[in-house]
């Protein structure tokens, strides 16, 4: 909880600035690039599939790609500790969820939605959440879509 | 839990008022019959108390039915209750009782006020006179049936709630008796209050007669209330939970102990005993005692209805 508070104030402030900024004619020309996307080490290669537009990209959070994906080490030629997120990733679900749980605590997740409890570290977070797009598609999902997401995996047929 | 809004609450205060009014009507007319039969005879219509009872009984039952109809989600379809009957439904049987009760009630009222009605007609309409005389011939049977139906009506208000298996506090065999007896006492109180307001003698034989019956009725009511809650507590389980929720701490606990036990039962009992022993009966004494009883019974109806729906089986 306290972690969120710590971030909330600067986050809101910078959001406000973004909104206000978008109205000023000077800012329209050059869209502000988030700091996270200026990370040469990653973006040089991952220009198309690596840019962050979501909430986690916000400058106030001061996150880097490495915070979630791990250190480059020998990547791409040699071994590394890098992890990808999603069902196709070689990283197991508990390894993937551990990356998220660095900041998000179990208690708060439980309060936000009960399904966090039952999927715990057994299902990777990316099965429902996507952080790279501007808006996480799970936000404001309709009851029907949500239910269909459940049956996408839980199906006896 | 808010006292007037909680999960599972289906019936609100209009139903409590309806139950109260039906009880008052049944009680008032029962006392009118008793007064006429045992004390007043033919001159009954001259008594302020009889007049009061004869006003209260039909007005209360009409007002009650009006509230009941307005409380339906489809008030304009109320006639379907009169057309379609279901023998297993307490409400359906109750509606039938109410209808017959009103018919007999009016027949009896005509019998009681035969003389003034005939005087007013002054032989102008011979048919009316003939009908009246024919009706009056059957007055004993009418009185008898009216007593039966008034008591049925009083008990029905309790059976209506005690048929609900959902709520252990309401689904209680003592409830119909409790409602019948408290209905009678509210009818007595209504008759007394109305009587003294209509310039009846507060030290008259009517008041003596009613007070003599009221004292045992209050005592029986206390015993019934005690049995009601002791029975619930001894039943254990949800019944016990229901009883403790009702008369324990909280808004309704205050209503029960302060409003029903003290104001509605103990004070009227004390006043009645005082008036009986001191033989002092003044307008204010009679009116205050009767008002306490009426408020107590109205509170009892609301208390039972609301707290009854708080605990589910």
């Amino acid at each position: 909880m306290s972690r969120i508070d710590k971030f909330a104030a600067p986050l809101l402030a910078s959001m406000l600035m973004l909104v206000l900024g978008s109205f000023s004619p000077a800012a329209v020309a050059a869209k502000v690039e988030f700091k996270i996307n200026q990370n040469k080490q990653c973006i040089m290669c991952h220009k198309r599939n690596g840019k962050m537009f979501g909430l986690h990209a916000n400058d106030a959070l001061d996150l880097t790609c490495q915070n979630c994906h791990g250190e480059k080490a020998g990547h791409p030629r040699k071994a590394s500790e890098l992890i990808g997120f999603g069902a196709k990733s070689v990283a197991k679900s508990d390894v993937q969820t551990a990356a998220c749980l660095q900041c998000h605590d179990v208690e708060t997740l439980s309060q936000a939605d009960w399904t966090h409890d039952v999927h715990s570290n057994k299902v990777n977070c990316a099965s429902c959440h996507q952080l790279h797009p501007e808006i996480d598609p799970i936000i404001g999902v309709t009851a029907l879509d949500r239910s269909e997401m459940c049956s996408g995996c839980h199906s006896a047929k | 839990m808010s006292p007037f809004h909680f999960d599972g609450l289906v019936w609100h205060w209009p139903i409590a008022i309806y139950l109260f009014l039906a009880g008052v009507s049944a009680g008032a007319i029962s006392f009118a019959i008793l007064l006429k039969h045992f004390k007043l005879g033919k001159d009954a219509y001259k008594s302020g108390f009889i007049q009061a009872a004869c006003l209260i009984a039909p007005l209360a039952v009409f007002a009650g039915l009006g509230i009941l109809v307005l409380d339906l989600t489809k008030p304009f379809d109320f006639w379907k209750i009169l057309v379609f009957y279901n023998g297993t439904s307490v409400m359906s049987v109750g509606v039938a009782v109410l209808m017959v009760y009103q018919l007999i009630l009016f027949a009896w009222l005509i019998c009681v006020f035969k003389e003034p009605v005939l005087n007013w007609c002054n032989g102008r309409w011979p048919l009316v006179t003939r009908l009246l005389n024919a009706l009056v011939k059957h007055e004993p049977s009418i009185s008898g049936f009216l007593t039966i139906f008034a008591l049925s009506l009083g008990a029905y208000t309790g059976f209506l709630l005690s048929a609900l298996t959902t709520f252990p506090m309401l689904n209680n065999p003592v409830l119909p008796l409790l409602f019948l007896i408290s209905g009678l006492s509210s009818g007595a109180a209504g008759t007394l209050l109305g009587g003294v307001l209509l310039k009846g003698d507060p030290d008259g034989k009517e008041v003596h007669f009613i007070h003599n019956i009221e004292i045992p009725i209050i005592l029986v009511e206390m015993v019934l209330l005690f049995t009601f809650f002791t029975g619930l507590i001894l039943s254990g389980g949800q019944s016990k939970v229901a009883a403790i929720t009702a008369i324990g701490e909280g808004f309704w606990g205050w209503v029960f102990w302060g409003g029903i036990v003290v104001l509605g039962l103990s004070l009227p009992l004390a006043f009645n005993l005082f008036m009986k022993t001191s033989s002092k009966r003044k307008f204010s004494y009679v009116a205050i005692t009767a008002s306490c009883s009426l408020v107590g019974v109205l509170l009892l109806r609301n208390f039972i209805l609301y707290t009854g729906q708080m605990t589910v089986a």
Partner: protein
Amino acid sequence: MKNSRRLFLKSACAVVVAASGYTIAKSSTESVEINGKKYALVHDETKCIGCDACSIACREVNQVPEGVSRLEIEREGPYGEYPEQYFRFTRKSCQQCEDSPCVKVCPTGAAYKDPETGIVSVDSWKCVGCQYCIAACPYQVRFINPVTHAADKCDFCKETRLKEGKQPACVSACPTQALTFGDLKDPDSNIVKVLKSAPNYRSKTELGTRPKVFRIASQEGDITL
């Protein structure tokens, strides 16, 4: 004269008592003749994942307005410690009692048990909205439909899916096949097989309602006293 009047009154009382006693006795022994089907439902709580597919399908098929519902899945939990946590899911809907309190109390007969299927139904035209049935239902699943102003509840899709020869909406929608619907009187039906294969329970049977919604209890979670 006086004696005959007393006799008359006494016999009148006796008749009233006898008549009401007869009605009560009749109502308690009476059971609707069984020539038709006896539809019932099993909710296997061990398979239920609480996805609400059933209640969403129900709302759509039966045009249940927002704010009220014929079917809800109630969630209880979480039990246990992270990451091994569980929920229990129970179905809240009409229990299709054989001895239905709502049918007994309805003053107009708007609440009735369909003799063909054994399904407890509502005739919304006959309903006047006294809400006696809502109070009488120990499962608290009845409600006033804000559109029709009549009492409403689950009827196993009698007026919608069953008429088309299909299974109730909830049963078809369930992704884990936790719901089984069928005729209890057909010994070869799926529902009879399911009921014979697993221990099951019904809610509040102590009230004598004889519900036709059966449940296979979830084994997960804590043991509560």
